């Protein structure tokens, strides 16, 4: 009996410790993001820094977005055609492709691709800068490292993610028209009119809002992980950088999917 009670107590302790750690982590992360935005004002040459970040997340990631966008549309068109043709409703293919892209696929997939390309690079860069004392060097110079390293990337994410998502949507709809009406039997006029009819301003609003939220969320998770690469107790040096990059990608992807569910439930 006594053994049983002490096991229960140990489990409760473990649970409490875990919970406290999560609460501390979330609070610390929020403080980090808030501080980054507040220190925007202290950064000079901000436009150049933001332009560089837009380049990193935008131009550099453009090919990936284009390829993934087209192929997502192609697959949606193909699968959607075969499902809809069972009910004789191929005319709704445009609706299916455009609405699934605008509401869900484009913001989520574009964000995941950007996390994979720009977010991981950002986390690794910050991790190395932490490791080689470059962040400490900034601090000793009196440069606000949050404002200099993190904030421009967060601002850029708010600009870039909606743009990439819009491109993703357009290419996806084109991809759907290629597989649906060029390769398969939907009339292209029917396809496009279904697209135009289906998408409303409200859907686009949801789409761009999601993209901006995902951008901010994923980039700040990546920044947080990279910035605190030295906090990891189990790994140091190059291992710490690789561990923080992995965590950045995994956690920000999860964060995007959770946020997607929450935002969708508000809009539906």
């Amino acid at each position: 009996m006594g053994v049983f009670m002490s096991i229960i107590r140990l489990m409760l302790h473990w649970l409490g410790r875990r919970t406290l750690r999560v609460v501390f982590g979330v609070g610390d992360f929020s403080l980090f993001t808030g501080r980054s935005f507040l220190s925007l004002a202290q950064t000079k040459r901000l436009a150049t820094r933001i332009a560089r970040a837009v380049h990193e997340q935008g131009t550099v990631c453009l090919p990936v977005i284009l390829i993934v966008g087209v192929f997502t549309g192609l697959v949606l068109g193909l699968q959607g055609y075969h499902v809809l043709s069972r009910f004789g409703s191929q005319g709704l293919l445009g609706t299916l492709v455009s609405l699934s892209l605008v509401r869900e696929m484009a913001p989520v997939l574009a964000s995941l691709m950007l996390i994979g390309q720009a977010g991981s690079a950002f986390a690794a860069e910050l991790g190395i800068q932490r490791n080689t004392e470059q962040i400490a060097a900034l601090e000793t110079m009196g440069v606000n490292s949050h404002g200099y390293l993190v904030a421009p990337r967060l601002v850029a994410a708010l600009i870039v993610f909606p743009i990439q998502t819009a491109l993703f949507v357009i290419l996806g709809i084109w991809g759907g028209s290629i597989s649906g009406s060029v390769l398969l039997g939907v009339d292209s006029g029917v396809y496009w009119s279904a697209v135009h009819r289906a998408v409303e301003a409200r859907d686009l609003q949801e789409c761009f809002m999601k993209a901006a939220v995902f951008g901010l969320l994923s980039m700040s998770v990546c920044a947080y992980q990279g910035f605190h690469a030295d906090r990891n107790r189990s790994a140091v040096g190059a291992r710490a950088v690789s561990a923080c990059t992995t965590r950045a990608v995994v956690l920000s992807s999860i964060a995007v999917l959770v946020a997607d569910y929450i935002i969708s439930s508000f809009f539906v």
Partner: protein
Amino acid sequence: MKNTKLELSVGLFVLLGIAAIAYLTIQVGTGAVGGGDTYLIESRFTNAGGIHPGSSVMVAGVTVGRVEGVRIEPSDFSAIVAMRVLAGLQLPTDSMASIKTTGLIGDKFVSLLPGADATFLKPGMRITLTESAIDLESLIGRMAFGSVNQDKAEKETK
């Protein structure tokens, strides 16, 4: 040199992005009735199944408005559908509203068939001539059991 290259690529990217967003909102996202004044009319249906806020309102196959809301009329258990219609469109008072479907299993929408009266519907007025949604499921069921006519006759006597 390096900086100007960066500026150029960022500028091109942002321009492309603005073009994409503009294309989406102007070309694709026209499902909603664009700007302009609208007015509210109502119509009473015995069955408004499948009609939601946001469903299309069409005249002659052209979208002219949106359903604003659907509510129940407690006195006779009928459905009252409120619709916003473009202000430029004047509908005769004897217009008929019916609930139709795009394709076999597509979205339900409200179709307005303009009448011939010389007087027009004013904001807040109610269309009296209506045709409710066809209950596809029971229709198919009845067809399958070959009793469409019999059922219809039964219904009319009710």
